[in-house]
């Protein structure tokens, strides 16, 4: 057993933290609240430091480090409420593309690592409906309408699932083509998502049939687990802000953080956060060991359940002990709260994940 970070991971963490701290003061973040909450120059700094390619192979211009190290980076981003779409591009998009298609990866990933292009994914949606027609061996034509696609308004490429001859297929589509129209959907975080309408849009085939099912199953595990790592960062920061604030804020002649009622509630947020971190660490470990195992699927679901439960409690409690200050948009806490809320519903909600886990347990062989 060893819960510590490797030297490389510590370096990645330090590098990320330095770049993120320089770019995320409340005044800097405020610039992006009403413009899509996306700081393109921070994105470029992360690219220049090599961090966008942290878990992408060296052959595509990346650092070639593992998923565990990517999660260290994501946690740091969560701690800063960083206005950059790391989950969409690096996890939901690039990580999965790299796992399934060396050929397409070679043509796309270098432009992602360099920060020039953006990739997202619509694989987790249970709302989108796309049908495909074969156009040649490696290409299909897509028709249909999506649900809410994160980063959908800005992404150049998107991983999609569609139906082809009653089989599920996974494709990569170029959203900048004229056969794709997007409609802006502004999220609670201020981020720009979109709904997509595709009218005979050519797309490159990545997987079909059982291979596509395997792809989707992996996508869910990686996204849920990475989401939990990101959530740990959000939670850490919310708790730190609440502890610092209540230690300082005085009412009735005392620091409000000295009241037992406040201490007990904040101690509970710490316990929730530790549970979330433990669930996240376990899922990262299981995925690294064997990302197709039943244990990794279960661990990812459990991480997702904790993501929902812990963020819900921590967000509310840390706002509550701040009083009015916690909801003032001139104070930074609210960005963490909306980011928490976005994550709570982004992959699977806690309630849905609990029911899924229940079904897995029921199906187990004694």
């Amino acid at each position: 057993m060893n819960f510590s970070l490797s030297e490389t991971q510590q370096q990645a963490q330090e590098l990320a933290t330095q770049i993120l701290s320089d770019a995320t003061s409340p005044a800097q973040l405020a610039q992006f609240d009403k413009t899509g909450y996306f700081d393109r120059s921070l994105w470029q700094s992360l690219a220049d430091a090599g961090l966008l390619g942290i878990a992408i192979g060296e052959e595509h211009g990346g650092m070639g480090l593992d998923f565990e190290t990517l999660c260290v980076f994501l946690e740091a981003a969560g701690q800063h409420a960083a206005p950059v779409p790391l989950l969409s591009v690096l996890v939901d998009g690039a990580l999965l593309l790299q796992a399934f298609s060396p050929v397409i990866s070679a043509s796309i990933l270098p432009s992602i690592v360099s920060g020039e292009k953006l990739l997202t994914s619509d694989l987790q949606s249970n709302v989108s409906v796309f049908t495909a027609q074969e156009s040649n061996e490696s290409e299909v034509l897509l028709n249909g309408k999506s649900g809410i696609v994160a980063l959908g308004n800005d992404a150049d490429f998107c991983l999609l699932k569609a139906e082809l001859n009653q089989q599920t297929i996974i494709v990569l589509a170029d959203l900048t083509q004229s056969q794709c129209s997007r409609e802006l959907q502004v999220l609670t975080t201020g981020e720009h998502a979109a709904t997509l309408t595709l009218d005979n849009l050519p797309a490159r085939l990545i997987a079909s049939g059982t291979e596509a099912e395997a792809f989707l199953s992996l996508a869910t595990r990686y996204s849920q687990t990475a989401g939990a790592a990101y959530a740990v960062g959000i939670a850490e920061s919310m708790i730190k802000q609440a502890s610092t604030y209540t230690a300082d804020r005085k009412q009735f002649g005392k620091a409000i953080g000295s009241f037992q009622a406040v201490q007990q509630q904040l101690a509970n947020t710490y316990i929730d956060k530790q549970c979330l971190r433990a669930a996240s660490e376990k899922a990262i470990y299981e995925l690294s060991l064997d990302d197709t195992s039943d244990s990794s699927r279960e661990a990812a679901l459990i991480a997702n359940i904790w993501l929902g439960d812990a963020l819900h409690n921590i967000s509310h409690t840390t706002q509550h002990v701040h009083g009015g200050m916690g909801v003032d948009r001139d104070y930074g806490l609210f960005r963490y709260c909306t980011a928490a809320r976005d994550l709570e519903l982004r992959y699977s909600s806690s309630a849905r994940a609990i029911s899924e886990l229940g079904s897995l347990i029921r199906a187990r062989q004694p």
Partner: protein
Amino acid sequence: MIVDLNEEQKAFQASVRDYMKNVMMTDDFKAELDTPDLSHGGGPVYWEKMRQLGQDGWIRLSWPKELGGAGADPVQQYILVDEAKRVGFPWPSLSANSIGPVLARHAQDAIRDKVVNEILNGEAYLAIGYSEPEAGSDLASLKTRAERDGDDWVINGQKIWTSCANFAQYIWLAARTDPDPKSRHRGITIFLVPTDSEGFSCTLIETLGVLTTATYYDQVRIPDRYRVGEVNGGWPLITGQLNIERLALVNYGHVAKLYDQTLSLLQSDPNFSPLLEESWVQDSLAYAHSRLEVLKTLCLKAAWKMEQGESGMVEASATKVYGSEVYIELGRRMSEILGAAANVAQGSSMVLNGIAEKWYRKGTVHTFGGGANELQRTIVANAGLGLPR
């Protein structure tokens, strides 16, 4: 025991429901309330509706007969506010229901009739100026100073979270008139400050959920007739009114809205109705329904107690804690059912006019506003259970 409204009260409820839905919540008003800056009121349609509300006698209804009102009992008053909030009407509860009657009792003759008439006719809104940057839960430590100067008072200081001050005609202001720090709550006086007074100013504060304001008082000079109640006698006026505010914050219609709307979406929209078959969705609906049914009864019971002439302080505190926490959990459960669409703030994918997205942003105020839940639990423990202080 009868745990329900009587026929007369039900008929009253139906008439209020009809009025709120058809006369107040017209399309032009709904559109105005959807504009972020006007979501609390203050727009042209808002004032039109307020005046009509006044003309049609609804504001007057809950006031005691001796103050020019129609003398409705607390149950009717509860029904009225409940139904208004249920359809999203920004009922002026603070201004019209909780502060208005206190003002009518304690204001000086020289201004009473004028201000009372303005309130009853829907022509004036009173914003509450209690909280200060350094005085929130510990309101008795407030520092905004009012000093006597001949026939006038000169006010200096700053208030924060003075909601609706940007469109109010008056601030119902708590100011310190005895600077001796030992006097605390015995050194506070209430004033009515017209917002067109020289030296008064107001800046907007954007919060996670709603718009509120900070108000500034720089040598604001007002005649003594704008003092309400005795000099240094403000504290009982403040605490008497907070009890009512506490209940209004979490009344049933207000908290049930999200469940009502989510359920009817599930029942009527083919994109959502398959979810009704999922066990976890049924669980959450059952959770919501069981919590809300109890909230409804608790609220009616509290209103009934007040009708019987009891103070209902412990019950009001308990109900406030319960209702505010249900509000938060309900927001989560219903949003889990609605899925990612519950996080859309703007765009065609928004569901139920964005109620779930706004619910999350507005939720936490319920647990610390109107007296933080810790303080309410202390009231329950001390006054309700007799635990030592």
